[in-house]
């Protein structure tokens, strides 16, 4: 049993479009990842990517697998009495990548695991670190600026600029320390 040329072209087009959805990201070339993620700018990027190698062997394999798988399925459906077009529509529907497919389910599990492991205490700790370091930095910077600038008399005589610079620099140092603390907490949670 063989299919018409038109159906073969449709099968090929469907397989090319759908097979890549089933492939895990790790198996895709950078170009394929870009193409998949590009959304609205897909066509634009595709035109540019055509200058380079556009499909990996893995993607072509998956595409060929789907062509054969779909053809076998369609032959069975036609043996049951469906027309070529009906068989194609049914196979297309059954083989279309869905959000509850294996890969997507895996992704959902990872999301669920991520959110399950999120603890409000972590966020609270991060916030407190930022605030603590910011206050410490501002206080230390301001004091250093105030004393370094000549103390109270100099401050009142227009030397407040040193204090202000100290406050700003101290604040920046405090926020920097907050970033480090955030990174440490994130890495600890990951491990």
């Amino acid at each position, binding site marked *: 049993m063989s299919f018409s040329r038109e159906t073969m072209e449709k099968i090929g087009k469907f397989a090319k479009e759908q097979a890549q959805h*089933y492939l*895990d990201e790790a198996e895709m070339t950078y170009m394929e990842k870009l193409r998949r993620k590009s959304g609205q700018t897909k066509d634009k990027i595709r035109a540019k990517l055509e200058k380079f190698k556009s499909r990996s062997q893995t993607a072509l394999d998956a595409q060929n*697998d789907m*062509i054969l*798988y779909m053809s076998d399925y369609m032959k069975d459906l036609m043996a049951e009495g469906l027309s070529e077009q009906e068989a194609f529509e049914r*196979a297309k529907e059954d083989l279309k*990548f869905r959000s509850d497919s294996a890969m997507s389910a895996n992704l959902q599990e990872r999301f669920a695991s991520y959110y399950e492991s999120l603890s409000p205490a972590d966020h609270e700790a991060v916030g407190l670190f930022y605030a603590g370091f910011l206050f410490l930095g501002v206080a230390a910077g301001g004091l250093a600026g105030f004393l370094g600038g000549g103390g109270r008399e100099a401050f009142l005589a227009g030397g407040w600029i040193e204090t202000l610079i100290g406050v700003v620099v101290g604040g920046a140092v405090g926020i920097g320390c907050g970033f480090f603390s955030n990174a440490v907490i994130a890495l600890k949670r990951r491990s």
Partner: protein
Amino acid sequence: MIFLDKFSEMLKGVLEGMVLEIISRGEIYGYEIAKRLHAMGFEGLAEATVYALLLRLEKNKLVHITRKPSEMGPPRKFYTLNERGMEELASFWARWDFLNERIQTLRNSGGKGI
């Protein structure tokens, strides 16, 4: 099987082992695996599920693949289990036996015999 939709979640956990067992019995291609499952009564199993599973087995290097010419154009992939696949299958049956035994005990005695 009329209640297939009721245990599709349960099936997800064992389908890989089932397919590995089918492949372990001899060289076989993708759609033939789906047909074998259908013949066993898993008619409601989505075609896409088996296709996606085979891609995963290949990615996880559990199968050996031989390509043979097909009448449709692209070469057809035939799967056999490699050593890693054999180990995974043995591990699957060990887990299955463990679970089956406990579930049966639970069913028979409500877990009091453990």
